[in-house]
């Protein structure tokens, strides 16, 4: 229409959709009409299209390539970093560890050594790291051949691991004890081509182990020596103890003999010449007799004391009411004389060495009567209480394993600070002129209580009285 009305020419492309063909159309106005030429340009169009699409592909491919490249670079950077970290780690480890690391390339027969190797064993000569031969030459002559045989045997028999202990010379000429452990790498054909190992310096460990062994040996020797000494001492002690008992026994017998004679003959003279004796002679005679009596009492007590340890007797369940009654009977005369009052609470039946325990009660009651206040009738009381523990402060417990006994008197008492002394052999708190006695009774008492696995203690106040307390197990 434009061509016709405007008088202008038209040039354009038309696509016929039916057959998907392109035509170039040129319309030129003529006088009274127009000329339209149609040129089939389908092929040209198609080529053009292909070119364009190819170009697009090229562009996108280049883009992809660039992206891949960037990714690759990232990856390389990342791997490089990782490698650096790994290398750093290896470097740190090889520096921190005492192991000298080595890497042996069989193909070129080159050995790489870690810093530790140079640091610990030989100074590095730049450019000239020791090879296998240099390494072998540093091994102690006595270990060298065996080590060499062993490493080549491992390689040649296609082992994957090798380890060996040997002595390796340090720069200063001294030898380090080495534990060398290595892996042998094989190529896909099974040919060994590389060996990686670490030389662990076990000198300190070895030294420590040896020292430990030596210390142990010394200790064992010492223990054996001390044991032998103790055994000897023990035997000596046993012998001496036995001898002592024998001595006490024999001595007291032999001492008794002449004493008996003195006593007897002095008495004989006194009996015969009593009426004719001047008073002072009679007094002297009485003194002789009294001294011999006292000496005899001492000897008999020593004999009893020494015999206690040797004596074999058996524990027997005994009614202490009966024992108490018997002991009270023994003192009947004394009790009547002093108008003493002896009572007991409820006394149990327990396992005792009857003869010995009787002596305990005898000694304690004898003391209570002896150390009474002049002119004051003694009041003596024995009590027993079942307790839980072998402890003077133990709470009462009717099902307990122990009995706590107490013997209370209203006698002259003594100062509490002497409480421990009274149980000592020959220890006396009063002069023998005032109170007769040998100073052995309470030592015997304590010994007997201890033979019963018991304990004894005393509390006293001067002028107020004394309490003996003792603990005995119910059963033996």
């Amino acid at each position, binding site marked *: 229409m434009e061509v016709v009305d405007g008088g202008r020419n038209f040039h354009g492309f038309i696509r016929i959709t039916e057959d998907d063909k392109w035509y170039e159309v040129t319309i030129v106005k003529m006088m009274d009409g127009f000329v339209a030429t149609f040129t089939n340009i389908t092929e040209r169009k198609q080529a053009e299209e292909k070119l364009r699409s190819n170009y697009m592909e090229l562009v996108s491919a280049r883009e992809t390539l660039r992206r891949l490249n960037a990714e690759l670079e990232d990856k390389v950077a990342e791997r490089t970093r990782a490698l650096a970290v790994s290398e750093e780690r290896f470097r740190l480890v090889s520096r921190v560890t005492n192991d000298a690391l080595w890497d042996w390339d069989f193909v070129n027969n080159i050995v790489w050594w870690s810093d530790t190797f140079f640091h610990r064993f030989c100074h590095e000569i730049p450019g000239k790291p020791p090879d296998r031969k240099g390494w072998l030459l540093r091994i102690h002559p006595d270990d060298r051949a065996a080590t060499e045989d062993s490493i080549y045997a491992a390689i040649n028999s296609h082992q994957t691991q090798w380890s060996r202990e040997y002595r390796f010379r340090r720069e200063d000429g001294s030898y380090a004890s080495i534990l060398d452990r290595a892996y042998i790498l094989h190529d896909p054909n099974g040919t060994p081509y590389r060996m990686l190992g670490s030389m662990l310096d076990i000198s300190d460990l070895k030294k420590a182990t040896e020292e430990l062994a030596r210390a142990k040996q010394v200790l064992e020797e010492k223990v054996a020596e001390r044991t032998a000494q103790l055994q000897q001492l023990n035997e000596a002690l046993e012998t001496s103890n036995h001898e002592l008992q024998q001595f006490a026994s024999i001595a007291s*017998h032999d001492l*008794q*003999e002449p004493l*008996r004679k003195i006593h*007897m003959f002095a*008495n*004989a003279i006194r*009996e015969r010449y009593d009426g004719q004796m001047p008073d002072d002679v009679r007094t002297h005679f009485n003194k002789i007799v009294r001294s011999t009596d006292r000496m*005899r009492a001492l000897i008999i007590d020593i004999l009893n004391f020494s015999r206690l340890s040797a004596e074999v007797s058996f524990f027997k369940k005994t009614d202490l009411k009966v024992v108490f009654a018997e002991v009270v009977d023994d003192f009947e005369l004394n009790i009547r004389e002093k108008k003493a009052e002896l009572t007991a609470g409820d006394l149990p039946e327990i396992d005792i060495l009857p003869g010995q325990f009787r002596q305990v009660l005898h000694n304690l009651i004898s003391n209570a009567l002896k150390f009474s206040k002049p002119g004051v009738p003694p009041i003596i009381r024995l009590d027993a209480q079942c307790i839980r523990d072998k402890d003077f402060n133990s709470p009462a417990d009717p099902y307990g394993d122990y009995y706590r006994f107490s013997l209370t008197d209203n006698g002259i008492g003594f100062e509490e600070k002497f409480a421990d002394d009274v149980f000592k052999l020959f220890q006396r708190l009063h002069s023998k002129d005032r109170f007769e006695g040998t100073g052995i009774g309470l030592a015997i008492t304590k010994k007997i209580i201890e033979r019963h696995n018991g304990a004894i203690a005393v509390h006293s106040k001067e002028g107020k009285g004394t309490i003996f307390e003792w603990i005995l197990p119910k059963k033996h």
Partner: protein
Amino acid sequence: MLKYKKILLVDDDSDDRQIFEELLHELDPDTVIDNAENGLEMVAILNNAADDDLPGLIILDQNMPRMTGKESLVFLKAQPRYKNIPTIVYSTYQVRDFYLECLELGAQDVVAKPDTMQAYREMIEQFLVTH
């Protein structure tokens, strides 16, 4: 009252032997007393005695050298010739175990040596009367 013609006293203590003899003869001057100082001497005396001259009673002290009272007792009780002779052990050794042991071995009695003349006299009377 006395039933032994002859007593053998075995004791190494001469004082004791003397006192024993004196007090015995106070009681009966006719009783013959033989003395031995220890067990070996006792054996010799007994072995040399004729059968009708053996003592009627043997008193043994315990503490003697060479052969003690207990050893002498064992010897006597093992010999048919002597085992029926009453034998008494006397000693300063006053231990219960010893006492029981001697009775077991066949002693007639075991007594403590007295320490007064009166007790001595009584002991000898006991020996002569009850055994």
